[in-house]
């Protein structure tokens, strides 16, 4: 009874929302972004928004990611992975050969972010996929995802972002207002740190942090 009432209420609210839709003819911010694109240091409008015009939002975003990773680590909620299969000839052959290809692809995505779709998040997700492929195939990672060094890599992304922002602020500019000559180099360096950090963080989150000892 209550569920039916709730269902009807949701349907009514949905119809009301559709009827409330304003006339969507607003031009959006695309024109302003293209007008300022030349000063952003990159040619991709999305990267320009993410790492230049609205870089502070991206800093908050990676801070949320770091917070989620640390909170998950503190819960010790990971469950043990199942035992490796006896014979995994295909995986034994495939995984080591896939490794350099996927790394190359992640590097390409990182570099492509400055001129076309790509960037730290896409590259980081690719790295995370690679790490998960290794973990799920019971490859012994010489550095487990919850080891000190892996966690340091995960935190290095937001920290380097903060260092860059603080440096621009100390140099008398606004926080994260890059000096013109350095813009592209700084954006690419932040994206490189973020790629590694997002890769480790997502893989860590996907495996549930660490096991209760």
């Amino acid at each position: 009874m209550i569920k039916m009432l709730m269902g009807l209420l949701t349907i009514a609210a949905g119809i009301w929302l559709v009827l409330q839709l304003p006339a969507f003819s607003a031009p959006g911010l695309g024109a302003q972004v293209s007008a300022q694109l030349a000063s952003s240091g990159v040619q991709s409008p999305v990267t320009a928004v993410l790492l230049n015009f609205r870089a502070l939002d991206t800093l908050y975003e990676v801070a949320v990611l770091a917070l989620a990773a640390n909170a998950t680590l503190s819960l010790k909620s990971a469950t043990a992975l199942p035992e490796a299969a006896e014979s995994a000839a295909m995986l034994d052959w495939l995984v080591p050969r896939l490794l350099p290809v996927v790394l190359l692809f992640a590097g390409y995505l990182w570099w492509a972010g400055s001129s076309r779709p790509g960037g730290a998040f896409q590259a980081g997700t690719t790295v995370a996929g690679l790490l998960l492929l290794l973990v799920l195939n019971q490859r012994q990672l010489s550095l487990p995802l919850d080891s000190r060094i892996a966690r340091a890599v995960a935190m290095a992304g937001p920290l380097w972002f903060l260092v860059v922002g603080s440096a621009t602020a100390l140099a008398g500019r606004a926080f994260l207002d890059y000096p013109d000559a350095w813009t592209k180099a700084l954006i690419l360096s932040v994206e490189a740190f973020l790629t590694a950090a997002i890769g480790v963080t997502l893989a860590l989150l996907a495996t549930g942090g660490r096991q209760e000892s």
Partner: protein
Amino acid sequence: MTGVEVPLIYVVTGIFIFMRGLYALFARPHLLHKLVAGNLAASGVFLVIAWSPQGGPPDPVAQALVLTGIVVSVAITAYAAALLVRLEQTSGKPYLEHDPDK
């Protein structure tokens, strides 16, 4: 409804997906259902934000917003799933105490 120049289907579908998720968020007692429902509702919001006006190039600010939203939602989902696992380990129940089905 004259004056609506965007492909209305994205917005209407987005609202439908959001409402479907919102309903399940309240109606389903199992916390895993709630987690999936929350993600579903978020996807509806992303769909509404990411429409491309008048078939032109997508708004880069909207794209950046949705990209940020997806990453945050993945991180929060993972954390919520870890909390859920922990709750089941400690209380033995994957739902909160006030279960409307009981």
